[in-house]
């Protein structure tokens, strides 16, 4: 067995590439800060990176509370990333996650606010709604060979407008505030049960959504790597023709993959909106969560656990922007940094390719053939 060099291992390369993206994003963010106001750039960067840890002096309780907020807000983007990477492993680019997330919002808030269901049923409704949305895209792909990206984008908008109509109605929306009612006022049983709220500074939004997210990631990891279903999905993703050749049912797998991916996206919405931290407001564009999920999935190296870490990172920087001193900087700088990081995510594969470049190194193009001796010396040093 040959020993592969440390930096040639795919896992290491994926990680290096992701870390490179993150670091590069931060560095570029710093440069932007320098352009805006060079004098305070260091301070600004420190504020973003210190983030809610600034409360550590004032009060551990506050610190933990914001740590909790941070976790709560990371849930939907992580789950959206899981949904995307799951489909991606099967060779499907589920850009419809945004729409599946949106119908998840409809289902969870309507069942909770208008129908007064218990939280467990509300989550279930969100999962089913997302799954149905995925199912529609899957059927289009499987039976009519409509590209899932096209079908997904269309369904995103359909979902958004249905959402505006249903949740904009008097049953769900507080017309005077133009946002959906507080679940805690209308139907307390519709709120997710708390999870370690005391530990997290009494953060009322800390719910079982957090452990569920971790469990979902682990289940995805297991399904992809241990089961025959995962085996089929990945085979289809790697090589559709070979999957067909080996007798796998491509149509069934396409539909099932999008159903599951949609279900995860729907669940993401349920697990976020049923904490009460966020309300739905009439929107003129599809929630960005599904799209951020794409970036997070890639930044996480398309690994279910990597997606958790990437999601936390992205949310951390997003939250960091509000700690900038607005006398020097516009708080949207953090959004800019995130955009850059997301943009760089597209280069994860590119970075991997660079790390992977074979012997074609231009350095000694003009060198004499006697070079290897020098190389050996270098190694000894």
């Amino acid at each position, binding site marked *: *067995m*040959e020993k592969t*060099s440390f930096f*040639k291992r795919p896992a290491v390369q994926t990680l290096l590439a992701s870390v490179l993206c993150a670091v590069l994003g931060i560095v570029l963010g710093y440069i932007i800060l320098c352009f805006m106001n060079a004098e305070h750039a260091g301070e600004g960067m420190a504020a973003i990176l210190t983030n809610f840890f600034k409360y550590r002096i004032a009060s551990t309780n506050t610190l933990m509370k914001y740590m909790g907020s941070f976790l709560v807000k990371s849930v939907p983007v992580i789950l959206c990333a899981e949904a995307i990477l799951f489909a991606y492993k099967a060779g499907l680019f589920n850009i419809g996650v945004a729409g599946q997330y949106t119908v998840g919002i409809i289902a969870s808030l309507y069942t909770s606010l208008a129908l007064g269901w218990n939280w467990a049923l509300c989550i279930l409704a969100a999962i089913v709604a997302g799954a149905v949305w995925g199912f529609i895209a899957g059927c289009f792909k499987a039976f009519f060979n409509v590209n899932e990206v096209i079908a997904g984008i269309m369904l995103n908008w359909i979902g958004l407008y249905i959402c505006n109509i249903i949740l904009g109605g008097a049953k769900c929306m507080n017309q005077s505030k133009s946002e959906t009612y507080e679940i805690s006022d209308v139907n307390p049983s519709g709120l997710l049960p708390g999870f370690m709220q005391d530990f997290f500074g009494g953060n009322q939004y800390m719910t079982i959504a957090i452990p569920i997210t971790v469990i979902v990631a682990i289940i995805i990891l297991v399904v992809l790597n*241990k*089961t*025959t*279903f995962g*085996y*089929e999905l*990945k*085979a289809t993703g*790697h*090589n559709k*023709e*070979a*999957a*067909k*050749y*080996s*007798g*796998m*049912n491509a149509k069934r797998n396409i539909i099932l993959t999008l159903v599951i991916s949609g279900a995860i996206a729907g669940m993401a919405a349920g697990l976020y909106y049923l904490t009460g931290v966020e309300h739905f407001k009439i929107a003129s564009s599809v929630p960005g969560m599904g799209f951020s999920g794409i970036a997070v999935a890639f930044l996480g190296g398309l690994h279910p656990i990597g997606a958790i870490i990437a999601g936390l990172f992205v949310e951390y920087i997003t939250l960091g922007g509000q700690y900038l001193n607005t006398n020097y900087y516009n708080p949207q700088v953090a959004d800019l940094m995130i955009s850059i990081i997301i943009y760089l995510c597209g280069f994860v594969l590119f970075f991997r390719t660079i790390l992977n470049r*074979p*012997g*074609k*190194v*231009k350095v*000694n*193009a*003009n060198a004499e*053939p006697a*070079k*290897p001796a020098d190389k050996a010396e270098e190694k000894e040093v």
Partner: protein
Amino acid sequence: MEDYVIEMLHITKEFPGIIANDDITLQLKRGEIHALLGENGAGKSTLMSVLFGLYTPEKGVIKKDGKEVKINNPNDATDLGIGMVHQHFMLVDIFTVLDNIILGSEPSKFGFLTKAEARKKVIDLSNKYNLKVDPDAMIEDITVGMQQRVEILKMLYRDNDILIFDEPTAVLTPQEIEELMKIMKDLAAEGKSILFITHKLNEIMEVDDRCSILRKGKYIGTVDVKNTTKEELSSMMVGRNVKFAVDKEEAKPTDEVLKVENVCVKSKLHSNDAVHNVSFNVRAGEIVCIAGIDGNGQTEFVGALTGLDDISSGKITLCGEDITKKSIRYKNTHGMSHIPEDRHKHGLVLDYTLEENMILQRYFEPEFSKHGIIKKADMRKYSDRLTQAFDVRSGQGAKTIVRSMSGGNQQKAIVAREMDRQHELLIAVQPTRGLDVGAIEYIHKEIVKERDAGKAILLVSLELDEVMNLSDRILVMYEGEIVGEVDPKKTTLQELGLYMSGAKRDDRKEAK
């Protein structure tokens, strides 16, 4: 003092963990045809990449006309007059021959194309070397053999005098091969120097002056072709003696296993049938071969037979059961094994490990899974048994990513998998494509063993040597139809060639 036009002296090129070229010397004389012979993975491609400036060697020098040169990129190579006909042509289908030839070095004045001069040069060259190319024909309308000549013209148009042919005969009919050989000789007679990469010994014997042999990255030697034999060349190439004729007994066919009746398949490219009214049968204990030039409906027919493509009409019976409309999985589990034509497209999931590929059609069976969870230990055991039995070599055993394995071992893995599966019929499509002599010999032996074990074998091959050596009956397919059935013992390559090119046909079954 010999007159060498190109010398590659003591070239060493290392990749991490492997020395692809180890102190290799290749000297090409002016006006000779020089064969570069070696198994897959012997280092031929690496050596050519070095010559083209794609790789920089760690050691060694390249000399042109006795003077040392640096080749850092393909442009340098072009400037030195080195040109190459690739295995896969680099032509734009919807352009004319002339446009393709001048592509990349368009003659122009003030930004406007001046084709007249170019046309004259192309016609002159075509006449001089008897290439018979029509400069105004569309590439998509001319035959593969013609396309290859366009590639040759491209090199000549650029005044290249060192021509490299990378396995040029793989796609040609016997007649076309003969003509190509003649063209190569004409070129050499005009002072062009030709480097001919191949592993077909017949061709070397016919056309080459000298032959350099590589094995496992090492330089074995250079021989004068007129002083050597095929056997000597092959033993230099593989490192041992190789038998060319396949040892086999007379076939003793028994029951009918596969029966194909009037099968038609619609073409994806045009409105006619890609496969039209094909009927034949295969019995247990015989090897039936479908021969023909690439693109005459073999792929579509196998697709219909195995279920990869839709069948438009006709009936397929396997072991007495009508399987025309059955799913691929049903066929897989009811007696059909299939070594696919394209191992990368169909046969393997390249990014899966060897063991995962070994259970590609069987992962759901109780032997390999329980409650939907794959039994990794059993998968490993099974894979190890097969790789051992069929001598599949890989870097990290069962855990090797198949993409990193050599083509021969990938193919062996497929052969192992398909032969080990429960089956009555083995469909082997080009089972030795791109493999070296050693691997071919091995796979041929295994196929004959299968036959003798009472299996029915349907072989689809483009290699005439393989067709003649291996099969018990030959069906020739031309434009989607079976145009003739011949007995390999009673026919000649010439007769086969006539069938394959449509010049001759039996009207045996066209009464319907």
